[in-house]
């Protein structure tokens, strides 16, 4: 059983999958933040690659991308951080979140080669819809690195079935129409949409875009197996950019982020303990 399927399983509900932008504000901070997120109970980490034109992202992650690009982060460098995280004890799977052009310029074969060498577990490309993903999907299968698919409330039931059948890992359900970013309200059809997804595919389903509180997660929990949070974390990073950039102040800043996220995302619930590999207690 792969590390990915060991952690990303319906049995580990609710799956907690946090996102951070690699290199925001620098490589060392990214490594420390990843370890912190595992200790907060993450079942996997989405490592975002900064891009000049992040179409699917809202202002918070756009700004993080600019900071990360300014720190010199690239797809290749970000992938090379994963072995450092592993050396420092990271056990959970790492998903590379990259826009397609970056992957294309590195070269798809080269990407999978580096992913294998770097102990990377999965890849997610937000601007590569199902129709355009066939070739990459085949390569991903050959290299046993799942290509995670996204579905949205605008995805038809027939499409859901088609995508569900061809996909691996988990299905990333976009909660609302729009880009990434914290929002108070989900798309009104979200629950109906999630029911459709559930009946259309057997994979674990995780909901992302706009999730920032345990109250929201509680509402979603009967309808899905996990949740993805990005902007709420990146905003906490943004609030402590200067401290995170300095070696002597970083540990305290990371600890503060952990405490803040714990209150926001888990509140009165116990954070999942993925290290036992057993069913967690959060939201159940």
């Amino acid at each position: 059983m792969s590390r990915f399927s060991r952690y990303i399983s319906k049995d580990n509900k609710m799956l907690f999958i946090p996102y951070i932008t690699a290199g925001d504000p620098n490589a060392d901070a990214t490594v420390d933040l990843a370890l912190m997120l595992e200790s907060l109970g993450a079942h996997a980490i989405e490592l975002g690659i900064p891009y000049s034109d992040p179409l699917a992202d809202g202002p918070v992650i756009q700004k993080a991308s600019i900071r990360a690009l300014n720190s010199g982060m690239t797809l290749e460098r970000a992938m090379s951080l994963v072995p450092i995280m592993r050396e420092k004890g990271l056990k959970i799977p790492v998903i590379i979140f990259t826009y397609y052009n970056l992957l294309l310029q590195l070269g798809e074969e080269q990407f999978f080669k580096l992913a294998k060498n770097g102990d990377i577990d999965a890849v997610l490309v937000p601007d590569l819809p199902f129709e355009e993903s066939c070739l990459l999907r085949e390569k991903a299968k050959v290299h046993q690195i799942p290509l995670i698919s996204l579905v949205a409330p605008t995805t038809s039931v027939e499409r859901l079935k088609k995508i569900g059948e061809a996909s691996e890992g988990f299905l990333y359900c976009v909660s609302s129409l729009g880009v990434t970013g914290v929002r108070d309200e989900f798309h009104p059809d979200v629950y109906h949409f999630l029911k459709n997804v559930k009946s259309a595919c057997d994979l674990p389903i995780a909901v992302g875009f706009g999730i920032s509180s345990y109250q929201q997660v509680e509402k979603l929990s009967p309808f899905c197996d996990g949740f993805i949070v990005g902007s709420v974390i990146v905003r906490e990073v943004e609030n402590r950019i200067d401290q995170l950039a300095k070696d002597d102040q970083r540990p305290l800043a990371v600890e503060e982020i952990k405490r803040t996220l714990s209150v926001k995302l888990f509140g009165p619930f116990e954070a999942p303990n993925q290290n036992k590999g057993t069913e967690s207690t959060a939201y159940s």
Partner: protein
Amino acid sequence: MKQPNHLGRYGAFGGKFVPETLMYALEELEAALTDAMNDSEFLNLLQHTLKEYSGRPTPITPIKRLSAEIGGAQIYLKREDLNHTGAHKINNAIGQGLLAKRMGKQKIVAETGAGQHGVAAATVAAYLGLSCIVFMGKKDIERQSLNVFRMELLGAEVVAVESGSQTLKDATNEAIRYWVSHVDDTFYLIGSVVGPHPYPLMVRNFQRIIGEEAKEQMLSKTGKLPNAVCACVGGGSNAMGVFYPFLEDDVQLFGAEAGGKGTDTKEHAATLNKGRKGVIHGALTYLLQDDRGQILEPYSISAGLDYPGIGPEHAYLAEIGRAHYESITDDEAVKALQALCEKEGILPALESAHALALAFKKAQTMPPEQSILVCLSGRGDKDVQTIRKVLKEGGSHVSV
């Protein structure tokens, strides 16, 4: 040569590289477009609107004095500058506006660089009674404040884009992000033959009237087709519009890319000559990018050519060698603009002046019994401030 295929590919180029949320909207648009283009009622309404509202057909003007002075082939201008709002952009805006209305959408969203497409979109929205939001880079707003005021007069809301480099590519990103969030009731009116399928196909089909008219006009005026056609290329909508009807003919096709301060500098927008294959704004095409795939900010004196990508069909035509793309510098364009003013009494847009400059070069290599058709895509009133500034700073005086 049936392009694009069912996946929206022109050879390897094109496609739909967008977030899943938009796939439904693109499918809906494709179905509505196919339906409309097969409906004679819609086509009649389109023809009628282009005639009564925009003043089509636009004429062909031979430039005899200038042709004689340059020597070589005779040059004819397709006068898209005589359209309502002063450029070819209105052809596409009318087409997409009528389609939006037919689809029952109440809101139009558009991106704009210099403001020409924004003005065309705002104009059509006013004409059809639709609301209109235009995204424009903060830097462009500062550079083109008159066009911002024009759009506001027309009732559009202009939103300043502060992300990224605050120019056209970021305005396009922001328009797409807005569209993703309001896909239920909003029609995205793209200004060029760029973006995900079916946009490049749709915009080409709304612009091909340029080439269709010109072909007939050249035949009746000269008794034959032109030997060559020249057009400027940013995203490439006027070029695709004038090229398309000539694709199967024995006519050379030349696109003029913005060479800016020279393609040996970093300040140009010569996408096909200096770019590499990649994905931008939903399409696989050529684009200006760094080694890692980060998109670079292009430069041109002409804001309408200042785009880091190019329509996928142009990338295809370049690859198969059916059309040839050369770069024209700021200086060459300004000189061509001055020459057309002084010898023919026509002030072209800086964009169109690139096509003109390339035509001058080509004419000199051709015999006088041959002819070149130039798509004069827009008028230059919008550029007088820029031109004045350039000439004051020591730009050249006319010398052809």
